[in-house]
């Protein structure tokens, strides 16, 4: 080895060593940050423990249970009509949609079927509660990314939808309107025309959001390419609803499920997006509100006449057996597994709610992202705490 070569080698080693020293100096001490249990970005009490290296998330761990109210145990001491009161409060933004799968499962056990008019009204309310739910998301995600105006628009237009739900059911928030074998009351007079006006409002709200939020450069920079969930990973974690459709999976139980709602008689489209990032999740939900508006207006034009209740005994005793029914709720797939022993109360009810699975992907998807992106990803995953913890 000549002198020149060894000098080169020495300088190379010295360079490496100084680089390494700089890296060590720049390496920050790890920090553990608690997002929650009270955090403005979660309307509820989810706590996420993120371990940070500088601005980058090393690991994230969701801590659930701050809103656990013990539904599955409480259903064992409530009669079947009382359970609907309870399950309203699981996903509190789209309350009516929570009752539907439970009632359908109980109907399957009792072998009764709701009359056609009841099924059509049920579907209309199901979709209206989806609108009431997702409209708030459209404003809420923007407010979490720093735009305050859309949430005011969302609350403004959501009020009209709630008014329509209230004028049918009497409950602005928690309708408790679905009964085994039909629905409680018929539609009030003039409701159909009023609802058409509201739907046109929601249509213009969607256009507004498209202009204000989707076309916004800041919004696009903060959401495009952030929090990408590939289709296979999403399916492995059990994502459902718009979260999995925005990863390009064409799967919607309203079309593929074949449960006792009448979506198959309507003309609508399942929207998917190939990207799987935060932007795609927002965009797919925006399109879904439009599709729901389309569905409701078709229902309003085509509601058949007839009775709204099937023949059901006054005191409801469900015959022994097991039934599982799942529907495509605003947040994803929601299902109830009922075991009945022929009693006034269910023996056991297992609730499969969408947000629990949607939030279980957070450790995977938050790994390696930056802190501001955490908010963007959590907002776009769109969970509701009552739906996670039950």
């Amino acid at each position, binding site marked *: 080895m000549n002198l020149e070569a060894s000098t080169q080698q020495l300088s190379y080693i010295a360079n490496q060593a100084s680089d390494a020293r700089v890296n060590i100096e720049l390496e920050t001490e790890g920090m553990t940050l608690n997002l929650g249990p*009270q955090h403005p970005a979660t309307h509820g009490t989810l706590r996420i423990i993120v371990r940070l290296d500088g601005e980058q998330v090393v690991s994230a761990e969701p801590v659930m249970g*701050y809103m656990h109210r013990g539904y599955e145990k409480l259903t064992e001491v409530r009669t079947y009509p009382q359970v609907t009161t309870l399950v309203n409060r699981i996903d*509190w933004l789209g309350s009516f949609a929570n009752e539907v799968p439970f009632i359908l499962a109980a109907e399957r056990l009792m072998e009764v079927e709701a009359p056609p008019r009841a099924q059509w009204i049920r579907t209309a309310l199901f979709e209206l509660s989806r609108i009431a739910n997702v409209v708030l998301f459209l404003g809420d995600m923007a407010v979490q990314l720093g735009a305050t105006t859309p949430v005011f628009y969302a609350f403004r237009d959501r009020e009209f939808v709630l008014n329509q739900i209230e004028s049918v059911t009497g409950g602005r928030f928690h309708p408790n309107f679905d009964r085994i074998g039909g629905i409680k009351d018929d539609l009030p007079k003039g409701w159909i025309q009023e609802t058409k006006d509201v739907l046109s409002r929601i249509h213009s709200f969607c256009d507004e959001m498209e202009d204000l939020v989707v076309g916004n450069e800041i919004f696009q920079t903060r959401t495009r390419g952030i929090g990408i969930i590939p289709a296979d990973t999403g399916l492995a974690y059990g994502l459902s609803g718009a979260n999995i459709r925005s990863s390009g999976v064409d799967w919607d139980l309203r079309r593929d499920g074949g449960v006792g709602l009448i979506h198959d008689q309507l003309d609508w489209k399942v929207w998917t997006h190939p990207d799987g990032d935060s932007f795609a999740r927002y965009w797919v939900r925006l399109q879904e509100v439009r599709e729901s508006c389309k569905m409701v207006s078709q229902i309003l034009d085509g509601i058949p006449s007839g009775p709204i209740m099937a023949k059901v005994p006054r005191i409801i005793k469900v015959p022994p057996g097991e039934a599982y029914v799942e529907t495509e709720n605003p947040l994803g797939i929601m299902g109830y597994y009922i075991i009945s022993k022929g009693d006034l109360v269910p023996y056991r009810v297992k609730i499969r709610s969408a947000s629990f699975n949607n939030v279980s992907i957070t450790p995977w998807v938050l790994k390696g992202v930056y802190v501001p992106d955490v908010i963007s990803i959590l907002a776009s995953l769109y969970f509701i705490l009552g739906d996670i913890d039950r």
Partner: protein
Amino acid sequence: MGLVENGKLPGPLTKLLNISRKYSLWVYQWGLACCAIEMGAAFASPRYDVMRLGVIPFPASPRQADLVVISGTVTDKMAPAVRRLYEQMPEPKYVISMGSCANCGGPYWDSYSVTKGVDQIIPVDVYVPGCPPRPEALLEGIVLLQERIASEDMTDRWNRDPIVVT
């Protein structure tokens, strides 16, 4: 506010302080369950618009807040956090318990994991019943609280009965 706490201020000055406190209530943004959405409707929606009552709903920290609305179910796991946030608020502070769950447990009266009433852990000034209460009911609770603040005497502040919105 140390002088006011001792009740040593002359009447007109106390009145002036009370009026200024009444119209600058800072509500901590604190959502727990379903009622949080109705609270959001009361605070953020143009239809109800709480700011016209002089209530400012967006302090980022409990240390800047005068009023907290316990909006929703308090579970046993959440109760320590509720207590801690309440203790972080500076005096004089007020609590509105919104909804049946925060008042007494509500539909979860026989649940194993729900605290039956937030008044077990923090003192409550106004109870707003309902499941969830309409935004108008919350506004009524805030107006009643403001009336009480306007005629408040610091010396017997802690001896008063809570308001119940009917």
